């Protein structure tokens, strides 16, 4: 490498940090990878930013900034440099404030820690490469699966945003469940009226191609180049369309409780589900199915199949409102109808409460209790129920028994997941990327889910969902010209041995295994039928594939194996038994926040700790852990996000856990102590999770004493890639 030295810019934070800057300056200027050292008082202010810009020019972009948390500093510096026309992709950061000066009382120790971490990051910087903005054009076409209200709204939204849209519907008619609703609370309007405007707009829109009686079979490819395979109208011949992204809007399915003997559904024609009653009402045909007689007396049963360990554990959310809506519709038609609703809790959100009240005022009788059984006798339907407030059983003979049956995911959700790559929730719905903030995206890039397929939703919620889902795709596709700095995994195809670990374990399903069709006969030995392919622009830069790849074929372009290994080694220079060091790899999501907040709150912990950031805990491999021990660390910990809360898509931290578990087994097997390695979960609302963890590892470092490396009794580990 021509020049892999970096300029180091050390900030005093307005002269407020208790560090020995003379010592830092001296030590750093002696480091072989440091081109220069500058101590500055305010790196984050105008003058400091200008200084960075100047250093970038002088040192070909290789600058190490030792200051406060990069979580705040980096965006500001990036913006400044961008407007200055500079490339900031090689800048590296060391946090000497929140991660050192603010948390260690002993100035000498904090200074030493800061120097070690600067040395480490200089090594990382030496291996850094310049990254540029890359562009990619993709067709501005999106396919929507499902033509209920969410699918229709998504089609209109995407079309308005400038995309060509294909809308695929299984049935003959668009409109899904909504078209059958007699009233949609709180609008007072029928489902048909609510749909009318949208169907009209759809008709007039030239950019939306509607295909009814069409079934999606499976999908190939990735964002920007999906191929959807489908069949139309019973025709067995499979056809395809190319598309850049897919919206899943396949709605929901109402549970048919035929197996719940107590309700006689499917056996007694006068036992209906709530949705069947809705259809009856919206067709204006309220009558007893068994004999067409007038309906005067109705029993509605809530939570049929819902809140039930056997069928659906959770609440279906909509059925209480549906029952009330239908009760009011019935009363409008048959004012003297007697309606009893048997329930556990009536769950009606916000203003629906007022409709609930209205129904009570109009005479609907709400009975807290449960049905014991339904049976037929003398041509009548008998119902026995228990009233838990009166602690009494009652028997009635209604004309209709209406079951508020559970809302379930639609058929085919699981089958499509196999090729669309989204994950499935425990309840069978499509799993969202992150429950608090990312409801429409799925694990798979370029696939969003909207409406009932993700969870039971009211009509207005499904509409909002569709509008939001459209925006999320627009953010991804950027109108067809995707432009971003390629920060992520880069594959060296020649090194790939086709093991498919990356494709199996990538939290976002980015690597694809491509069949090699043109393998030459001679090199039978060398032939791999499948080889990975990774589009760096689609990658989320966690490094899971890198930590798993047996050959180092896939590596992050901002944190190669060489970079991390040399950083580990440099950080731990001089680490020995006298001052046992705990090395902590921390993910740059919840863990960095937790550690930063510990800093901001100035919560103390021992300074015999060295911190190395990784984008996701899943980036840390067994080899990285062993390298740390080899370089002199006494204990090694990984700080990661909570279980199932990985920022990348749910599994990076679990992969890290596996690496830690295996590393511990290896250590124990070779006569070390597995306890030298551990992993901890954290988030910033509970900062003491970090201090507890690191105190524990520092304690273990002391208790477990010198490592075989310190004692000179261990061999060197072989790198797996050599």
């Amino acid at each position, binding site marked *: 490498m021509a020049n892999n030295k970096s300029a180091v810019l050390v900030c005093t*934070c307005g002269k*407020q940090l208790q560090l020995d800057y003379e010592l830092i300056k001296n030590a750093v200027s002696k480091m072989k990878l440091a081109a220069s050292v500058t101590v500055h*008082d*305010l790196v*984050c*202010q105008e003058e400091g930013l200008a200084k960075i810009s100047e250093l970038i020019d002088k040192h070909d972009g290789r600058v190490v900034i030792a200051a406060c948390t990069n*979580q*705040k500093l980096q*965006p*500001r510096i990036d*913006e400044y440099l961008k*407007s200055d026309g500079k490339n900031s992709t090689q800048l590296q950061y060391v946090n000497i404030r929140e991660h050192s000066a603010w948390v260690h009382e002993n100035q000498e120790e904090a200074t030493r820690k800061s120097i070690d971490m600067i040395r480490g990051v200089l090594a990382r910087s030496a291996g850094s490469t310049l990254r540029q903005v890359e562009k990619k054009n993709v067709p*501005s076409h999106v396919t929507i699966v499902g033509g209920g*209200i969410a699918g229709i709204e998504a089609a209109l*939204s995407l079309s308005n*945003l400038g995309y060509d849209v294909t809308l695929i519907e299984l049935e003959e008619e668009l409109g899904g469940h909504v078209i059958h609703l007699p009233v949609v609370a*709180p609008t007072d*309007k029928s489902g048909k009226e*609510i749909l009318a405007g949208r169907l009209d707009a759809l008709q007039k829109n030239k950019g939306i191609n509607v295909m009814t009686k069409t079934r999606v079979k499976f999908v190939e490819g990735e964002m920007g180049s999906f191929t959807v395979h489908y069949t139309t109208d019973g025709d067995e011949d499979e056809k395809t369309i190319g598309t850049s992204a897919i919206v899943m809007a396949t709605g929901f399915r109402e549970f048919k409780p035929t197996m719940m003997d107590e309700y006689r559904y499917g056996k007694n024609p006068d036992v209906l589900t709530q949705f069947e009653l809705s259809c009856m009402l919206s067709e204006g045909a309220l009558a007893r199915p068994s004999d067409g007689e007038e309906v005067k007396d109705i029993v509605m049963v809530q939570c049929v199949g819902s*809140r039930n360990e056997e069928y659906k*554990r959770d*609440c*279906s959310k909509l059925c209480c409102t549906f029952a009330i809506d239908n009760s009011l519709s019935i009363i409008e038609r048959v004012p003297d109808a007697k309606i009893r609703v048997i329930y556990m*809790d009536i*769950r009606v*959100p*916000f*203003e*629906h*409460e007022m409709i609930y009240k209205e129904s009570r005022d109009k005479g609907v009788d709400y009975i*807290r209790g449960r049905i014991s059984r339904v049976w037929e006798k003398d041509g009548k339907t008998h119902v026995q129920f228990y009233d838990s407030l009166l*602690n009494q059983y009652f028997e009635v003979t209604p004309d209709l028994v209406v079951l508020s049956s559970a809302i379930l995911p639609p058929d085919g959700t699981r089958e499509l997941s196999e090729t669309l790559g989204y994950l499935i929730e425990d309840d069978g719905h499509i799993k969202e*990327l992150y*429950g*608090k*903030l*990312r*409801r429409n995206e799925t694990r798979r890039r370029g696939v969003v889910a909207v409406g009932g397929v993700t*969870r*039971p939703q009211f009509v*207005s919620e499904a*509409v*909002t*969902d569709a*509008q*939001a889902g459209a*925006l*999320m795709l*627009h*953010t991804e596709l*950027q109108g067809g010209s995707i432009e971003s700095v390629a920060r992520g995994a880069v594959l060296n195809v020649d090194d790939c041995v086709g093991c498919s670990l990356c494709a199996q374990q990538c939290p976002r399903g980015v690597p694809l295994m491509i069949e090699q069709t043109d393998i030459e006969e001679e090199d039978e030995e060398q032939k791999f039928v499948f080889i990975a392919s990774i589009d760096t622009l689609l990658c989320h830069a966690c490094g899971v594939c890198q930590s798993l790849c047996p050959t180092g074929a896939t590596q992050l372009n901002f944190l190669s194996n060489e970079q991390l290994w040399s950083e580990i080694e440099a950080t731990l220079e001089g680490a020995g038994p006298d001052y046992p060091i705990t090395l902590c790899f921390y993910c740059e999501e919840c863990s960095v*926040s937790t550690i930063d*907040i510990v800093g*901001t709150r100035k919560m103390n912990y021992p300074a015999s700790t060295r911190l190395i950031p990784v984008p996701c805990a899943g980036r840390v491999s067994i080899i990285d852990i062993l390298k740390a021990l080899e370089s002199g660390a006494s204990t090694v910990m990984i700080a990661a*996000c909570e279980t199932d809360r990985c*920022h990348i*898509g749910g599994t990076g931290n679990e992969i890290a856990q596996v690496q830690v578990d295996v590393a511990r087994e290896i250590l124990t097997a070779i006569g070390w102590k597995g306890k030298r390695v551990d992993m901890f979960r954290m*988030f910033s*609302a509970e*900062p003491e999770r970090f201090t507890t963890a690191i105190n524990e590892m520092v304690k273990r470092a002391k208790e477990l004493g010198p490592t075989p490396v310190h004692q000179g009794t261990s061999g060197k580990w072989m790198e797996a890639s050599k």
Partner: protein
Amino acid sequence: MVEVKTLVSNPVLVIGAGVAGLTAATQLADFGIRTVLVDRLPIVGGNAMDLYKAFPTDDCSYCFEGSRLRPGIRKCFYRSAILDQPNIDLKVNTEVTEISGSPGKFQAKLSVGPQYIDSKKCIMCGLCIECSNAFCLPSPQCQPQAVIYDPEMSDEGAKKAEEECPTKAINLGAQPSEETIQVSDIVIATGYHEMKPVSIDEYGYGKIPNVVTQLELAQILDPNGKSGGALVRPSDGGQVKRVMMVQCVGSRDENYYPFCSKICCVYALKHANIITLERDGTQVTVVYMDIRTYDRHERYYRVARDAGVRFVRGRVSRLEACADGTLDIIAYDSLLDKYLKFNVDLFVLSSALEPPKGSAELIESLSLHPASGFVGPADLTSENAVVAADHVYVCGAATGPAEIPESVTQARAVVSMILQSRK
């Protein structure tokens, strides 16, 4: 082909910088639309700033989505880089006092409070806090990441801080100002206010210190708070052994708000579970009419029952403060048809979520449709919850009580609609 990066000159005004407003502003900014984001408080985040852990994920409440500037699935408030987003003009301590003009060309008059601290300059070095009690860091997660100054607490040290602040970020003489901006669209993200049930005499709120609301309880449980997360009695800091929660305080009540506040059951049980499972040996009893844990939130109810939280369907009929700081309570259990006696250390009210101050004026000045005091949709039949009027949008709890995930989804829908209208 869609052109995305055009800088549309007509800015959008987002009123309220809670999770909803923040999401709307960052998304708009990502698409190159200039956004003026105002909040009357000195920091962003709104109510989410004070919730500690949030359902449905049980991790911090103070995070929101990433942006192009901060890619990722989510980012804490402190690292959201709102201040450094070139398309966002954040104005805290600011209120919108008047809106005139016509859709697409609104004039909004802003009254901007004194900017004592230049938050772009403050580096949180802590020097001023050492000098004077008038400065404080509102929360380690606060955004802007800067101290705030309270002129009422000013002392000698404040002057010294002003002189010695290493970045010259302090201006004690700052004055309020007014400005009028022209915007094409308005996004209402004013959120909710948790009702302070002082007027409901029977619960003694505001008179008895150990009677608190759920939001106040969240702050007691917060490890970043005063007691470091220990569940203590406000009256004397003593350990809490028994807690009673009462649901539907001011909600579902014709005398106050006839609507259901929709999420109080979920957060009450969230708190009940934290207390029962993570704060040793504390017994929680919940007095309720219906437990409304919709959809997957049912999990909180299941966990609560398994954890040993007691549920009493009925109502509290008497509450009396004892000399030792505890409370004697008599509750009617409608399932058992019995009156039950309790003695607790802390009595927690699941108080109604009401429209924040100023909502009525806002609704009036823009001729919007009220929904129990919150902002309703322009056209009910369209089922377009986020469109409040021509060029006026609404998201988050400003539409009525809403949880964070809903608020965020709605904010995205708003941005979607604004972009659609500009194509």
